[in-house]
């Protein structure tokens, strides 16, 4: 047994010496290979953790929301609709929801106004998200001014700042009383932005949504499952930029593998010829090439995955931040919980390390089975 280990160690010694003789080329190969795995793993870690958090955090989102649409765009909904929807069997309650956006031209930031159903701030006061607090350096007791729909300024005293821990859902929130909201936005007293329904039996969501559509054809009911599925699809491999990153990474890897599979350099062929001439068996050469492929791909895999984990879960995905921020000036500083799908790690391993190692062995096998004299010529 020790002989077998010692023999393999000698082969590894020789393989690494051979790799070090072409230090520049192999270092570049390792760096690019690591970078590809790092990007792939970062995207997978980030998107999976975010999707998992969305599923956990949004589990208590409203059961059914009813919007009113006109020519494909959502519009304020008359409160009279609430009465009609409340008459549908199975609906326990219908509550108007008041929310909207406020663009702060001084800080070039968009805020989300929300009128809470429970414990709303007193008129003249507001609660703000920690993102707004940091952006405007505003704290409890300070006064913030907003311009209303009529162009007149309105001042609000900050009652409290929403907990920093909940930035992922509250960074840009302004919680405001109904009276102040209507005065600021100009939404009349007989209208709301949408309606929130509570339903007796969750199995009836779809049936009730269908009844609402038939009763009020200009409405769009959105059920809880659809909201959750929206975030299931966010950053899925088929969406937007993610598929571009995957395509680029896959293409780069195919080029690597193709370069390896289509043949060896003259120097490598000569090396195999010499090894055969001095007595190496074909199996020894294949083992050497196996270790060569494994040394490069396993090292790249381990480095890439470890760096990706640190990037996403310790460094708040700082490389993705410019992409995620877009043109926004208000961006939540959230740290994702390290929720890992080990299937993703295994998929990266089997899609990179295994094919690369095999494509290293195949051309060497072809060269190793030819007469050494012919290979060296």
């Amino acid at each position, binding site marked *: 047994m020790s002989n077998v280990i010692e023999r393999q160690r000698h082969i590894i010694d020789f393989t690494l010496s051979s790799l070090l003789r072409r230090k520049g080329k192999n270092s570049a190969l390792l760096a690019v290979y690591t970078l590809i795995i790092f990007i792939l793993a970062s995207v997978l870690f980030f998107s999976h953790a975010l999707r998992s958090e969305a599923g956990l955090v949004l589990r208590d989102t409203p059961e059914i929301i009813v919007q009113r649409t006109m020519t494909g765009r959502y519009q304020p909904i008359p409160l009279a609709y609430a009465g009609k929807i409340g008459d549908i069997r199975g609906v326990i309650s219908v509550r108007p929801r008041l929310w909207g956006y406020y663009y702060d031209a001084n800080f070039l930031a968009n805020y989300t106004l*929300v009128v809470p*159903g429970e414990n709303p701030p007193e008129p003249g006061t507001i609660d703000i998200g920690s993102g707004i607090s940091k952006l405007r350096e505003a704290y409890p007791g300070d006064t913030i001014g907003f311009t209303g729909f009529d162009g007149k300024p309105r001042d609000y005293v900050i009652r409290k700042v929403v907990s920093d*821990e909940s930035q*992922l859902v509250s960074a840009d929130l302004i919680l405001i009383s109904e009276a102040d909201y209507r005065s600021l936005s100009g939404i009349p007293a007989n209208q709301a932005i949408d309606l929130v329904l509570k339903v007796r039996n969750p199995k009836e969501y779809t049936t009730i949504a269908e009844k609402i559509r038939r009763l009020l054809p200009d409405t769009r009911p959105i059920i809880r499952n659809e909201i959750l599925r929206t975030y299931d699809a966010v*950053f899925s491999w088929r969406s*937007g930029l993610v598929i571009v990153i995957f395509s680029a990474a896959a293409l780069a890897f195919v080029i690597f593998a193709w370069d390896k599979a289509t043949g060896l350099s003259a120097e490598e062929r000569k090396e195999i010829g010499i090894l055969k001439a001095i007595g190496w068996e074909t199996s020894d050469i294949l083992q050497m090439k196996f270790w060569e492929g494994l040394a490069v791909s396993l090292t790249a895999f381990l480095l890439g*995955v470890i760096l990706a984990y640190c990037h996403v*879960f310790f460094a708040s995905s700082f490389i993705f931040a410019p992409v995620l921020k877009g043109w926004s000036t208000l961006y939540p500083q959230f740290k994702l*919980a*390290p929720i890992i799908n080990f299937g993703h790690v295994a998929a990266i391993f089997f899609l990179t390390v295994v094919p690369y190692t095999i494509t290293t062995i195949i051309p060497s096998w072809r060269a190793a089975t030819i007469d050494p004299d012919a290979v060296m010529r």
Partner: protein
Amino acid sequence: MAARHSSTYLAVTGGLLSLLVVLVVHAHYGEKAAGPALAGMARLVGSLELTDLCLFTEASYTRHLAMTDLTTPFQDSPFAFEHFPTGALVSPPEQIVRDHVQRH
């Protein structure tokens, strides 16, 4: 006497594997430790009747992804390109795609 290449390689690979194991353990405990914070956010979502994560604040249709409509990303012109960068990161909500497919 210099160390053998194989010894160095095995030590480095062993070190990286150990680090990977440490990160797996970190993930296990990190997920558990995040539980109360996630539960707190879920309570906030429930009490404020929120529908979306605050990931992107630059455009209404990416801020409230689940609430958006089909036309907002293209503003008022049917031939306009969607121009907010984050629109390229997310796909439209399933119900909008489904309704659109049913109509056409």
